[in-house]
């Protein structure tokens, strides 16, 4: 009991999020049909939670230990805090999107549920990035998933919306079930669900190699679903296209970040054997994990990039592009060194900004034209210069061309790869970037070079939205030129508890 009370101050951000969720639900009940203040309550809750995350930064300890063990259920460290900060900031931006989103406005009577479910996702992701126990991983993953299944179909008024949530719940249910089966086998072979204890067992005694490998692969299947890595990416295009665009943006950034944080922690903590003098990690040699991850990563980015080539819906195109980006981010893990870890974190910050920005512009255009089809983007360059130019910058950054931030993100990934002597993999990734240039630039061609057959009304956006757009635009360009603070910040946050 004392142990539980002592650990409570380690989960202040989560407690703050849970209180904010309850307050939101109560205010929604009291206010009845008046939904004006919900967004403000939501933003205040997010800011309070941000404060507690920043306060917690730099802590390094286990929380909720059992009496007999020195390892706990949660690992509070700066790695987790970094991802929590990323998640909360993208939540803030997505809530700001939701205020103007036409799709969300139409489903106004469900705004209370919408925001509460976003809180549900946030709490799930928070526990996911700091979990050090397989059962906590499963619980947090389900909390995240269950909220996002409903959010994918929250507006209910279009066919594609309902379809997205059905596909999401079926694929998600299967993959989390498979993951749970893997967890149960790993539990049976080690007698514990704590990943630190499992690692200690790996190092000291010979375990049933085949069975343990199988269970680790099953767990990877569950994580692979969350980060939409091939071959578990089939849900991504359909769900991303069908879900409301704010939720698409949120899934592609925050939920993916949480999935990657879990993957990095699980790989490093559970499977590590020893650390070489040059800083690279040796993984437990059950199977060749490196080759396995290289195959997954190259498959993911190639499938994503090539499928994106013939997409005519911008939301679907960005869905495939986010699959491709998951492939690039996996390259950082393949480097199997702290340098690669740092590259992943830098990539995620930049990816979050530019991807949210791209989705924001698509949302603002869809608010007016009611469509995300590329055909409707013809000639938009003349009537909406600010929107189209910012979309162009975000897309160039997603390609990874200098002087945008996307270049720096890719640069660090490639540097990490080259330093761990994987030139061929880096070369394949580079070729993939060239392929991706085609479909990103194709959007620019539609906007600026093609002429519209019909007359299009000028698209005006209000002052607040242009400010938000510029706030997203500035780091996209600035981080491409002046990136030292971001690199320093990532370098200071790579400390995983115990290593």
């Amino acid at each position, binding site marked *: 009991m004392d142990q539980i009370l002592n650990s409570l101050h380690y989960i202040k951000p989560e407690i703050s999020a849970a209180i904010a969720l309850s307050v939101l639900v109560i205010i929604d009940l009291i206010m009845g049909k008046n939904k004006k203040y919900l967004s403000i309550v939501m933003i205040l809750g997010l800011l309070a939670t941000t404060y507690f995350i920043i306060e917690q930064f730099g802590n390094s300890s286990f929380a909720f230990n059992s009496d007999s063990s020195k390892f706990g259920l949660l690992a509070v460290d700066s790695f987790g805090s970094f991802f929590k900060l990323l998640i909360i900031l993208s939540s803030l931006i997505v809530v700001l999107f939701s205020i103007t989103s036409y799709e969300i406005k139409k489903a106004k009577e469900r705004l209370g549920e919408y925001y509460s479910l976003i809180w549900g996702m946030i709490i799930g992701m928070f526990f996911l990035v700091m979990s050090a126990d397989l059962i906590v991983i499963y619980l947090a993953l389900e909390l995240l998933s269950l909220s996002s299944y409903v959010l994918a179909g929250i507006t209910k008024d279009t066919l594609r919306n309902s379809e997205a949530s059905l596909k999401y719940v079926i694929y998600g249910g299967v993959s989390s079930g*498979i993951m*749970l089966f893997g967890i149960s086998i790993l539990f049976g072979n080690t007698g514990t669900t704590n990943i630190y204890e499992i690692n200690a067992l790996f190092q000291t005694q010979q375990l049933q190699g085949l069975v343990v490998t199988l269970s680790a692969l099953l767990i990877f299947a569950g994580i692979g679903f969350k980060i939409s890595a091939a071959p578990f990416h089939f849900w991504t295009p359909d769900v991303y296209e069908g879900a409301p665009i704010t939720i698409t943006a949120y899934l592609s950034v925050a939920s993916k970040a949480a999935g990657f944080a879990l993957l990095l922690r699980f790989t490093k903590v559970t499977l590590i054997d020893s650390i070489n003098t040059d800083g690279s990690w040796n993984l437990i040699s059950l199977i060749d994990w490196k080759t396995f991850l290289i195959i997954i990563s190259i498959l993911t980015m190639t499938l994503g990039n090539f499928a994106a080539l013939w997409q005519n819906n911008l939301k679907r195109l960005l869905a495939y592009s986010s699959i491709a980006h998951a492939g690039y981010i996996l390259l950082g893990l393949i480097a199997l060194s702290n340098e690669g870890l740092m590259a992943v974190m830098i990539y995620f910050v930049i990816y979050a900004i530019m991807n949210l920005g791209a989705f924001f512009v698509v949302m603002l255009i869809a608010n007016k034209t009611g469509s995300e089809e590329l055909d409707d983007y013809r000639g938009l360059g003349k009537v909406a210069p600010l929107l189209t130019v910012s979309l162009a910058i975000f897309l160039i950054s997603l390609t990874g061309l200098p002087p945008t931030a996307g270049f720096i993100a890719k640069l660090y990934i490639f540097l990490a790869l080259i330093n761990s002597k994987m030139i061929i993999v880096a070369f394949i990734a580079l070729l993939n970037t060239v392929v991706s240039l085609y479909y990103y630039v194709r959007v620019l061609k539609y906007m600026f070079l093609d002429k519209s057959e019909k007359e299009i009304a000028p698209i005006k956006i209000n002052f607040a939205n242009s400010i938000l757009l510029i706030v997203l635009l500035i780091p996209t360009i600035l981080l491409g030129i002046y990136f030292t603070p971001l690199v320093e910040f990532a370098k200071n946050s790579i400390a995983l508890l115990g290593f």
Partner: protein
Amino acid sequence: MINITLYHYLIVSSVLFCLGIFGVITRKNAIMVLMGIELILNAANINFVAFARYGNFGNSGQLAALFVIILAAAEAAIAMAIVLNIYKTFTNINIDEIDTLKD
């Protein structure tokens, strides 16, 4: 009288797991697919309890199974709500016919 060992439980759970996967892949009705998912979760549950009982791992296996039962119920509730919504919009729940989103 056969002596029930850990292996008997593991065989039952593996069979359940395979049946679950088989159901998910072959069934067209969304409800049947969800039942397949339940089978997978229950296979894991049998594993947890059997390992905890025969491996002398204390209560942790039973506790894990309890958590999984609760989550399976929550997941079933949410999935049913989504299927109901699908039935209202598409008037059928055959997952092969729900394909407005395609390349």
